[in-house]
Each structure stands twice: as C-alpha cells, then as structure tokens.
C-alpha cells in the first residue's frame, strides 16, 4: 500500500519535472568561427555563410536566422542560392554537393538538407577530372554548371542532382573550338570561373586558370568567342548590360574586354594595374555595378603592392573620383554588394564584406561611406572574452540610460537601416530586458542586449583610462585617412585582438540593476566601482590598497606589478564612470567579486585572501588573508615556474625521444612524406602506449596548492550568531574547502557616511572533503534563496522569510551540503563526485516556471560539471532533478565560459567568437522563429501572413511563468509606464505555433 502510494508520488513528481525542465540549445550568438564562404540572395534578401566546420548559417532581417550542419566534417568552400527559390547548394571540401531548402512547417521555416551529390567521372579518370572548382547556378533555376580542376564543365539538373551528360562541356569540346595557336589542353588548366550572360541566359562564360575565357552557347553547344587573357585568372565579372567582361588576374591587374560581336578579340579594351609599377598581389575578385546616373562602382579585392602592403587585407572601392582601399584587420573571405530597388537592380546601396573575424557592412549612399552597425554576427571577440555576467529583467529606466550612453558612442555609424531584410521574424517580443556583460582582455566591458535572438551591442565601457598604460587614452579615429597616402587606406572593422597590457583584462563583473552601480575586477588585482551617470564628468579615481598578505612573511610575489593609476582627473563620457578603485597587494588576479548596493559594500577575493570595501566611505572594512604558508605556488605568483619548468622539461624530453624514433624509421625506409608522417604518428601512439597517462590518487590536504584561493563571496542578511536577530553577513569560500563568515555591523542610514562599518569573524567551516567551495547560498524560512539587494525595496521580489529557520547551502566542487543556521550543523547533502566522478564547474540559482500551470514554479540550482553535463538540483531539498549532456568534456574553455541566467537559460562559448544559448526551462526559451517564403515574381506585394492553426491557438498563451513572477513583472512594467501588449504577443506566439514552447514572460 505504502509502496504503491510512493510510486504514485514519484510519477507525479516526474510529471512536474517534465513541466519545469527541458533542455534545448536554442541559438548561436556572435560571429561564426572560421567562416569559409559567403553568398547573398537578392530575391530572398538572405545571406548565407559556410564555415570550415561544415556549418551553414542563413541571416535575413534581425531575428531571422537559420542554421544547418553538414554530416561530413568538411569545410564549406562555396554556397550558392538557386535563383528565385528558397534552395541553396553548398560545395564542401570533400567535393560533395549538398542541396538545402527552407521548408515552412507549422508557419515557421526550417533549414533542411534535401539531397547530396558527388560528381562521378568516367571510369579510370583521375580525381581531378571531377574535382569541382567553380559552380554556376543558372538563372533558369534548374541547372547547375560545375567547372572542375580537369577543365571540364558538368551540367547537373537540380534540385534532383541528375547529370545531364549530353550537355557537358568537355575540355575537348573547348580546345577543338579554339584557334590553332591556342591549341593544347595544357594551357587551359582548371575552370576558375563560370559566369552567365546577364542578358542572354544561353551564353555562359568559362574562365580557365591559365587566363583564357570562352563564351559558350548552350543551345548551339559551341564556343561563341574567346578572350585570350594571358595572366593567371582570378575572377571574372560580366557587366550588367552584357557588353563587357572584366577579368582580374594574379599579377594585380584587371582587364576589360568587349564581348559584343563575333570573333576573337586579341587585346583588352582596357588593362590596368590599380596599385601599379611595383609587383602587386592578385586581385581575387572584381565587381562592377552601374549607377543610374554617373559612373559605375568598381570593387576590387586585393591587388596591393606586394612588397610594402602585401600583408594588408583590402577591398578597393572606386566610384568616379573617389577611391578608397578599405583596410580590414583579418583575411577577406568574400564580399557582395546590395543594390537598391524592388528588383535589386538599382544603385549599389551597401557593400557587405565577410572577413575572417567579422562582417562589415558599408553604406555606399551616405557621404564618407560609413559603416552600418550589424545587428547580428557581431564579433564578440574583438578583444578576447575573459569573463561574462548576465543580468535578467533590467528595469526600463536603467535600460534606456545604458542605451543612450551607447548611442553617444556609436555616432560614427551610418544612420541607414540594416540593408538585409529577408524573412519574417515571428518570435514573440522579448519578455524582459536582459543584459549580457562580457569582460575583455583589453580592459573593456561590453553590454549586450541579450533579450532576444540577436545579441545586439548596447554600450562599451573601457577601464583603461583610469590607468597609465602605453595605449593612447583616446581611440584613434577609425574614419581618418591620411592625406595623399597611396593606396588610400581606410581602417574598417573593430576586430583588434592585440591587448596593450594584459593586466587590464577584466576577470569579474557584478552589476546592480536597480542602483546602476557596477563593479569590475581585473587581472592585476584592480577592483573598480562605477556608477551610471548621464553626464560626462571629470574626476580623479581614488585608489585604495588592500594588503591581503596581512604581514605574512616568507612571501615572494613574482608576478606582474600593480597598475599605475592616473593622478590627474580623467574625463569620463556619459555611462558608467569609475569613482573608486581598490588595488590588491599582491596584485594577483581577482577570483571572486560581489557588490551589495543596499549596504554600499564591495567584496573581492584573490588567491591570497579577501577584502571588504565600503564604497560610500571609500575605505577598507576588512582584509583577511587565507594563504596557507606552505602553499608555494600561491606564494610565487601566477607564473608558477616550478610547474612550468617541470612541464617544459617533460615536453622537451618527449620531443627528443619522438624525433629519435622517427629518425630511426626514416633510415629504414626512405618513403614518401605521407608515410613518414604516418610513421611519426605511429611512434607517438606507441609512446603513449609505453608511458600512459597516470593519475595520482591522493586525498586532498591543507598543503595543496592554492587552497587559500577565494572562489566565492556572498552577502546575506541572515541569522549568523543567534536565532532571534538577523544581521548582515559576508561569506567567503576558498579552494581548500573553507568557509569564512563575518558578521557585519552597518551604521544607521543617516550616519552611513560617517560611522564605520564593522566586520567581525563569526564562523569558520572546514569541509572535511576539502573540495573547492564554488557557491554559497542562504535559504530563507521557506527554503527559497534570499532575494538580491534592493529587489525587495523595489517591490520586485517577495521579502525573505525571517520567521522560519534559515539554512546555509555550501556548494563545493564535489557536493551540495545544507547546514542549519545559526548553529551550523549538517542537515543534508548531495554528493556528486563520489557518485559519478564529475565536478561542479559552474553553478547558479534559477527560477523555473511550469509550462502547464502559470501559478507554479520552483527555485533550483543550475549546475554545469566538468564533464559538460547540465544538472538541475532542487532547493531546498538538494535532490538531483534532471541531467542533460551539453558540452563536450574536452571543451574546457567552453565549460569555463558558461554563465547562467536567473530563469534557467545559459550561455557558453562554442568558439572564441560565438556564444551558444541554451535553456533548461520549458517556459523560458529564446530561439529564432522565422518564416521565409518563395519570392513572388511580382515585386511589391506584401508577404501573406501565415494563418494560425485553429486548435493549437488555445495552448499557446499558457506559456507564462508562475503568477508570482508574472505579477511582479506586471508591477515592474506598470511602474515603468510600459504597456504590455499581451494581445499582440499572443497573436504572435500563436502564429509561431511550433512544437517548442516560446517564452511568455
């Protein structure tokens, strides 16, 4: 009987779990890693990017995003849209062709692979015969021309990939039609380019690597004309009127050829080396576009003088007398030009350039050709990301202030709207305003609008101005080009991976969304407290030194020195302005940071100890050394020589051994290079067999390295010393499994600026398992985590229950342990490592709303382990709820970069430049939902909106959080004068109507 009932309860719990938790990777933010191909469909207004890892990504209007991944792990070398269709063809490194289509399903388009194809040559032919080098999607939309390395052109019917052998243009056909003096197939080489005559779809131009171009008539199946260029061919462009062909060459020249009339033209109409005289690099792509009135636009990629500017990545834009060489900071992958007009055949309006690390769009219709800020594909990594911090539900007032501060920074951008407008974004409006803050190596903090599918840059804060560095305090003006310089360079793009001083790097960020106080901490032990100010201000930043060693002798800091602070007042633009600075001594990297805006306190920790700083009075309240005197590594600073020498010795020994092995092999058989490489690989494997990786099994002791490193800091108003009075308290957890608790005494508000703040040690807990403490949370009488500071004051959270007993939750890398308060005694725990060998890497507190009933929700801990698994642990019961594999365990930097939101979502870096967004909650999902329709031939008609499916509508609006949260947000919205457009939202989400629930609130 009993057992039966328990079973029933369990299944009930299982149902609740299903309603609360669900794992989805929803969207990738940022810039794709290692892009390799770019294409634009003027009819769809979509751009597609292929990457070296085989991903294909489509972008249209902001919020319209699609992603596909080839099963083959090969680079995408070319992407082509089929004209006037929603299909596209990709060519991979392994010579396979793939057909993708955007299929509408429940009113939402999905990117699907619909077919694959590999050219098969005649039996016995070398692979080069079928190795595809050029692809042309014919304007008829049902033919694909594939030029190959062997010089043949194969014709394939699409979308079915049926070879039309009788239409193939073989090398023999072409050579036979050539005059005698061009004879011999040797001179033709591979097919470099295939172009269709813009005015006559019967004619196709085949450009061969050696330079010769042949215009082929598809119906007569014969050559119409030869263009006898003599230089190695790089690209070909057929002008819009069909009258000329432009060819660009490897020597940095381009030629214009007349194609009207029959017969062979022996000389180009015009031949020019734009950056002339001295040898130049190849012009890899050339485009010429006419304007309605006036001279055409000419776009050239490359062609720089080899000796002096051969390392520049340039695109030259020449229009009338204006000639600019746009100078990018990374390699150019490809570019295209967007044209005005309903049929996209008007004046060029924007130049879109994909370089290796960013997408740059240049407004060609505004004076000075300013850059248009991209709403997506933003290079997150313009300086390497060193940390990130997420703040949910930003109050409107604060949001607007940050936006306006950001707007002042973006005056150099074009005012033009984003030119790529394909597809319809059907995602519901973001339920709340979320900020993602990223700290960067160059000392900047970037604020991103993370509310929706597009991670949009809002504001950039630079902390370098506070310090004396080699860098110029004012950024050099990007738009300036020096007078009379040739080539006329202009720097564009913001990718700048070079940091002037690594000590400036931001390591920890904490923002109070209610008060506008921000604290950031960096690599050289610097902690800045900043306040949001709408006016520019000139002020001196007062520095306070916190000596964390507390007179520990025998200490030698071998690391970097402290940053030097500017003595004179510094002018800070509107935005977050620093007013206080704490510098840790020794200047080790800050490992933990927390701000309490209500108490006006900041606490920080390093590997040596932690401190408490009163930013109202600008004084240190407490400094505590946590250093273990026997901890040599921590004593010596960040560059642990002991370890590195050992390591490098081991590595060099290995290298020597390896080279000996391979030498021996080399003597035995002097085989080809491939074999040698194989042998080396084998030797390496053999070596691994001989000396396998070993792991030492040893209990942790207090003498281990970095036991004093402060991992987590926490403020709580709780019952620390007796159960009748709650007081402010500070909690610190270390790498050695210690927890320190301090009781804080704050003066009354009216005396806050005069009377000192006191911190008295109250408790110390040493976890016997000595695992690093990564999180501390105090649970109130109801078992809920304590609210954030000022949250209650702003009526946005239920105040903590001070009647019942508080509990202390200590999260170590190995276990979750609940203690009673004020008397600390173990109440319950959940072991992780002892059971499955994984360790907690990241932990956050989140609220999970139920997808079924609006008034139900639970708090839980979101946990990421070193195995890359995500767990949800219930509160206050600390029971494992769900587990999902998320990140590969080898992806250490991805795991380390993970940040959780307060509503069960999270972000982690999948490459230096991309955040993957995931959701653990069933009712808080941000994902792209968009529709792309087959372009209609009659321009100007609006796309019909999809009608919602009748029955599914009723379920769609049940996707809100519990009423608690909803009500709170209602209050927030009404406080901010925000009119919730529920009707609109519901209609939109009804339209969306997919299988995954969208986020209500």
């Amino acid at each position, binding site marked *: 009987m009993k057992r039966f009932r328990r079973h029933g309860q369990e299944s009930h719990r299982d149902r609740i779990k299903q309603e609360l938790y669900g794992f989805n990777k929803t969207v990738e933010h940022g810039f794709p890693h290692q892009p390799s191909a770019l294409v634009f469909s003027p009819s769809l207004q979509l751009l597609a990017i292929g990457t070296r890892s085989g991903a294909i990504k489509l972008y249209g209007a902001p919020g319209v995003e699609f992603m596909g991944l080839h099963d083959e792990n090969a680079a995408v070398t070319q992407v082509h849209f089929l004209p006037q269709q929603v299909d596209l063809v990709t060519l991979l490194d392994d010579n396979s062709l793939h057909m993708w289509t955007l299929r509408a399903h429940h009113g939402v388009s999905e990117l699907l692979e619909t077919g694959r194809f590999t050219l098969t040559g005649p039996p016995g032919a070398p692979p080069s015969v079928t190795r595809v080098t050029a692809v042309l999607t014919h304007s008829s939309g049902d033919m694909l021309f594939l030029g190959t390395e062997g010089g043949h052109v194969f014709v394939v019917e699409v979308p079915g990939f049926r070879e039309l052998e009788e239409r193939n243009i073989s090398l023999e056909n072409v050579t036979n039609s050539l005059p005698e003096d061009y004879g011999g197939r040797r001179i033709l080489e591979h097919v470099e380019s295939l172009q269709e005559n813009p005015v006559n779809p019967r004619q196709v131009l085949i450009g061969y690597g050696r330079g010769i171009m042949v215009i082929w008539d598809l119906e007569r199946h014969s050559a119409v004309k030869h263009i006898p260029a003599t230089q190695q061919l790089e690209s070909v462009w057929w002008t819009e009127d069909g009258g000329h062909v432009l060819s660009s060459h490897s020597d940095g020249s381009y030629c214009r050829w007349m194609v009207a009339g029959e017969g062979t033209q022996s000389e180009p109409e015009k031949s020019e080396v734009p950056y002339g005289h001295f040898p130049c690099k190849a012009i890899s792509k050339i485009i010429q576009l006419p304007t309605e009135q006036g001279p055409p636009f000419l776009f050239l990629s490359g062609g720089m003088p080899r000796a002096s500017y051969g390392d520049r990545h340039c695109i030259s834009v020449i229009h009338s007398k204006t000639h600019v060489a746009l100078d990018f900071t990374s390699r150019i992958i490809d570019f295209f030009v967007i044209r005005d007009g309903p049929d996209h055949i008007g004046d060029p309006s924007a130049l879109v350039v994909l370089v290796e690390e960013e997408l740059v769009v240049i407004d060609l219709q505004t004076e000075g050709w300013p850059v248009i800020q991209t709403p997506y594909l933003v290079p997150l990594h313009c300086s390497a990301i060193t940390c990130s911090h997420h703040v949910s539900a930003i109050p409107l007032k604060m949001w607007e202030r940050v936006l306006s501060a950001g707007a002042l920074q973006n005056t150099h951008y074009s005012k033009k709207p984003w030119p790529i407008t394909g597809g319809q974004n059907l995602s519901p409006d973001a339920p709340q305003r979320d900020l993602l803050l990223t700290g960067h190596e160059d000392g900047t903090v970037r604020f991103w609008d993370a509310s929706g599918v597009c991670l949009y840059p809002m504001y950039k804060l630079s902390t370098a101005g506070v310090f004396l560095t080699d860098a110029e305090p004012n950024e050099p003006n990007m738009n300036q080009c020096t007078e009379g310089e040739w080539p006329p360079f202009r720097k564009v793009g913001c990718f700048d991976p070079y940091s002037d001083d690594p000590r400036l790097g931001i390591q920890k960020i904490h923002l109070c969304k209610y008060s506008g106080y921000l604290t950031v901490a960096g690599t050289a032990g610097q902690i800045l407290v900043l306040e949001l100010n709408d006016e520019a201000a000139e002020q001196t930043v007062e520095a306070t030194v916190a000596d964390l060693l507390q007179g520990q002798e025998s200490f030698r800091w071998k690391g970097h020195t402290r940053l030097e602070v500017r003595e004179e007042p510094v002018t800070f633009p509107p935005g977050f302005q620093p007013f206080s600075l704490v510098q840790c001594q020794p200047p080790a990297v800050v490992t933990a940071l927390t701000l309490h805006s209500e108490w006006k306190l900041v606490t920080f920790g390093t590997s040596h100890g932690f401190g408490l700083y009163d930013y109202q009075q600008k004084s240190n309240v407490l400094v505590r050394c946590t250093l273990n005197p026997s901890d040599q590594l921590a004593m010596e600073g960040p560059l642990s020589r002991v370890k590195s020498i050992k390591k490098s010795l081991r590595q060099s020994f290995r290298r020597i051994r390896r080279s000996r092995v391979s030498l021996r092999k080399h003597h035995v058989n002097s085989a080809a290079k491939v074999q040698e490489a194989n042998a080396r690989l084998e030797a390496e494997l053999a070596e691994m067999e001989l000396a396998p990786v070993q792991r030492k099994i040893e209990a942790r002791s207090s003498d281990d390295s970095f036991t004093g490193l402060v991992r987590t800091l926490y403020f709580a108003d709780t019952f620390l010393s007796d159960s009748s009075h709650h007081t402010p308290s500070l909690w610190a957890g270390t790498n050695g499994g210690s927890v320190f608790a301090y009781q804080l005494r704050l003066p009354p508000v009216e005396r806050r600026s005069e009377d000192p703040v006191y911190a008295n040690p*109250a408790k110390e807990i040493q976890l016997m398992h000595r695992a690093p403490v990564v999180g501390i949370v105090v649970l109130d009488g109801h078992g809920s985590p304590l609210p954030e500071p000022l949250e209650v004051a702003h009526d946005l959270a239920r105040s903590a229950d001070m009647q019942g007993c508080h509990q202390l939750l200590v999260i170590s890398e190995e276990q979750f342990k609940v203690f009673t308060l004020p008397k600390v005694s*173990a109440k319950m725990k959940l072991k992780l490592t*002892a059971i499955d*060998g994984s360790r907690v890497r990241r932990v956050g507190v989140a609220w999970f709303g139920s997808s079924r009933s609006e008034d139900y929700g639970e708090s839980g801990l979101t946990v990421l382990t*070193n195995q890359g698994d995500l767990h949800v642990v219930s509160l206050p019961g600390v029971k494992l709820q769900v587990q999902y594999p998320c990140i590969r365990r080898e992806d250490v930097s991805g795991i380390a970069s993970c940040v959780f939101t307060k509503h069960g979502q999270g972000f982690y870096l999948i490459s230096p430049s991309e955040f993957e967004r995931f959701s653990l909650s069933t009712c808080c999902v941000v994902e792209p939902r968009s529709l792309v329709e087959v372009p209609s031939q009659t321009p100007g008609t609006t796309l019909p909106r999809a009608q919602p499916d009748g029955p599914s509508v009723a379920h769609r609006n049940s996707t809100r959080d519990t009423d608690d949260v909803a009500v709170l947000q209602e209050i927030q919205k009404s406080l901010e004068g925000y009119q919730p457009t529920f009707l609109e939202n519901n209609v939109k989400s009804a339209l969306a109507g997919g299988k995954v629930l969208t986020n209500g609130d």
Partner: protein
Amino acid sequence: MNKHHRVPSNRTLSSVEVKSKFGAEFRRFSLDRSKPGRFDEFYGLLQHVHRIPNVDLLVGYADVHGDLLPINNNDNYHKAISVASPLLRLFLQRKEEADYSAFGTDSLTRPKKTVLAAVLLRPDANRKKPPVIISLPRDFRPVSSIIDVDILPETHRRVRLYKHGQEKPLGFYIRDGSSVRVTPQGLEKVPGIFISRMVPGGLAESTGLLAVNDEVLEVNGIEVQGKSLDQVTDMMIANSHNLIVTVKPANQRNNIIRSSGGGGGAASGSSGRSSDSGASFYGYFTPGAAIVTTPAHIIQNFHPEELESDEDEEDLVIEADGEALPIPRAASASCSMPSLPRYEPHLNLRSTANGALASSTGSLSTVSTPDRGLEGRSLEEDGTLITL
C-alpha cells in the same frame, strides 16, 4: 552546552592554546608551536600546572577527528602539537585509574559521538583495568580490509582503505588500459582502469592488497566502466577518506578460497572465512610507537555497516570563540545518495542506548553503538551531566 562567551582568541600561528583537564579541574596555558620541547618536559609541565607532582599520569588529547589519542612519547607529543588547531585539549588520568578503553582511536565506529562524551561518561573509579599492557590494541587503527568476500566472485577483491586520520599517503596511481571481457560475441577488448604505480611506503602498498596492473572495477560501489580516467580519479579522491575499491587482481593466485573455511594461503596472511564478511587489517597509526606491525593478523571482524556510517564525515566548525567542534549532525536524515547496498549481518547484538546521555546532551544524538565485539568497547554511562 557550548555556551562559551569569550573573546575570540587570536589564533596566531606561533602558539598553541592548551586546555588541560584533570578530574574536574581545567588548566589553560600555551605552548610555542615551533619549539614544543620534549615529552618529559611537557609531562613535568602538566604535573606542575595541575599541582600533582607525584601522580603518574596518562595523557590523552582530542585530535581533529574527535578521537582521543594518547601522548606518551616525543613523537606523538609533537604530532599532537602540530595538529592542534587552534586548541589542544588534553585529558589527564591517573595511571592506576586509567581506562585504556577510552582511547578509542577508531572514531569510525562512533561517528555520532564526540570524544568528550566518551571520556567524561566513563566511570572514574569502579573500573579495574589491567595495569600493564604491552601493546594497546586500541592504539591501532584499521588501515585496510577485504570486504564482501561472500558476495563477490572469487576473482574480484573489494578492498577498503582507511585514510582517516592517517599520515600516510594513499599512495597509488591509476591509468587507462584495456582488458579482455567475455561477451556474447566472444572475447572483446574493452577499455579499463588499472593501477599503474604504488608509492613506496604508501598506504596502498603497505596493505599488500592492491598491486600494479590490478584492474579497478568499482569505486565505493560505483562501477567505473564507461568513465574516464579523470572521472575515476575524482571519484577516488572524493572518497579518499574511506576508499573502497573493487579490483580484479592481476595476480589471481592469492585469491581467497572461500570453501576452505579455515585459514590458509591467502594474500598477505588474510585468512579465508566462511561466514565473515570481511577481514580487517590493523596497522599502527601513531608514528611514535615502538613496533611497526605488518598488517598480517586479523584482530577482529569488520562490520560492513561502517561503510554507510562513515559516509558522512564531520566538517569542522569554528565558532567565533575559537573552539573547534566537529559538526554534529542534525536530526533530519542525510540525503546522500546510497552508494552501496546496505549489508548488516552482525549489527547490534548488544545496543548500549543511553538514556541519560540522550536527555542531558541536547545536540548529541543518541546512538546505538554497534558492538564491535571487543571487551570494554561499549560505552557506559554514570549519569554525569556534561556541558561543553
């Protein structure tokens, strides 16, 4: 209990606070940690501060795990000084009245009891103990045992290593490897985890129960198959205070032959048994004693319920007054995941539930101490009320 309201002591690293109790009297003094001196000097000092110059004393101290350990030579005296943090608590007894059983070193069997209760509840005078003991068995701690012999296949061995309170390193390394398994498809090579190296003088080596190339099958009841080397490493370290590894020994010749029933031929002198679930090896735990015993003979049988009872080690809490106390567990149940099937064949032949103890000491939960089968191991009470 525990109502000290003293100023927080400055726990400097250089000096050790000593609180010495003799009968009902307390003395407090401090010692220089760096220069503790010799044991006989210390002994004299104790006699001096307690003003009992001619009384023969048995000196004991409470270590961090709550064990009452003896101080009777330079080595264990220095050890006591070095581990005292922040306070060294001493308990002096007259030698003739001394209750050796109080030196219950193995706190593993009494995890829910503080040592003070054990000491203070001890009857003072009415227990007669043999005055001369050549070697105190209670000075020995179990260091390892073979357990679950009756439920495991003969080819496997489940070894428990007692790291608790040990100075010795666990002392072994593991590696990836491959082993051959019999599957329905025939023989198959599968990845496995193996012991790759033993640290000379380490706990693992000294037991003789583990050897290089033994395949690790389970860690504390969790199968390691499918887990990475790092995962298994972390599991072992997380369980290092009470590590139970199930191995398939590389050398299969020394396996316990269950059917033999008597002693004989087993590895490291362990004997086969028919009914016992395991064998414990007791090694010497304090570095200062005279003999280094080989863990060769079985002293007592091992109770498997210890596997569970030891799951929860006690974290140390230092309150503002500077006292170190092991955390008593609150009454509510621990929810640690059960890792091993509970197996209790010998549990509680005689339970010494202690009413007075329960009623008088609020936070000390009453425990029914499992009888360990040794005379004098169980606690008795004389109604003394204690406050700490």
